[in-house]
């Protein structure tokens, strides 16, 4: 190894450490960012000042096309149901399915969309209020509990399901 290689190796291990307490000072200086409910985030996309007609018709037409293309219409959230966002990071996967108590663990019923540029698969599903269990099925042979969820329970057959409780948020 020549002198330059040795120096580059040292550089790779070298850090100029931020001053003590740096992260704490940054966090103390941050403005408050209120937690944003999914409903409110979606509302931000809604155009104002009467400019909603064209995008609304375009969106409705696109949804109809997608619905007919899939051989069925989408399932909108009904009263007592909550739209829930499922997401799994699986950049190398070819297909990700969602199976749970809400679709009687049927394979092929809910297929996630993806992967996006960051390798995430997503699905928006209308769930009845209450407790649900679910699991992701990747490429038809890998069962994955939701790594982002806090609660899991063994299913008694060697796999681990994720447990969630969903409730409609109280109107502000």
């Amino acid at each position: 190894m020549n002198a330059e290689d040795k120096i580059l190796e040292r550089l790779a291990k070298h850090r100029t450490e931020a001053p003590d307490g740096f992260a704490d000072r940054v966090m103390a200086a941050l403005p408050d960012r209120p937690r944003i409910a999914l409903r409110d985030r979606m509302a931000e996309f809604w155009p104002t000042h009467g400019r909603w007609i064209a995008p609304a018709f375009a969106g409705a037409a696109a949804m109809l096309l997608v619905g007919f293309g899939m051989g069925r219409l989408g399932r909108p959230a009904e009263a007592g149901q909550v739209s829930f966002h499922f997401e799994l990071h699986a950049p190398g996967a070819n297909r990700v399915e969602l199976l749970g108590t809400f679709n009687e663990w049927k394979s092929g019923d809910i297929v996630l969309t993806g992967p996006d540029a960051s390798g995430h698969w997503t699905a928006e599903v209308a769930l009845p209020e209450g407790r649900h269990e679910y699991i992701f099925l990747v490429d038809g042979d890998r069962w994955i509990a939701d790594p982002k969820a806090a609660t899991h329970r063994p299913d008694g057959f060697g796999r681990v399901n994720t447990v969630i409780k969903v409730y409609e948020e109280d109107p502000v």
Partner: protein
Amino acid sequence: MAMDERTDQELVRAGLDGRQYAYEELVRRHQDAVFGLAVSMTRNREDAADMAQEAFIRAYNKLEQYNPAYSFRSWILRICANLTKNMFRSRTRRRNMEEQHMVQTEIEQSAVDPDFQELEEALVRLPPKLEAPLRLKYMEGLSYDEVAKVLGVGVSAAKMRVLRAKKLLVEYLKP
């Protein structure tokens, strides 16, 4: 899932939902890289800490604009580099004073490990235009494309600066 297992992109999403602990993890992950870049550009640890702090605050305020297809580290480094350049534009006249000040304070404050100090002293001797790309390339592991984007220069300029920085560093560190 433990915080340290989450990707930067996952932490950004949690930060967007108002979970400040997620953003704090991002700060802790990248604070040395951002501070190091600011040190190399400002030549003053106090200014560098201010620039790095401001960069993280700016990033937080425009977290919605972050594109997860790209590295968060490159993004925050670019914000810091732009802030620092803007600071210099507004006070160009003080630059020479700050460079001299840096050479003194940096060496005083890093008297820990002899190897660390020797390298830190050598880095400080490099012109800021050469030190910053060298740090990004070899300490942060960025590609030349990323180095160029962070510093707002062309890829060939970034390569040339890294090459010159390496030559000078070898000379400074000759036994």
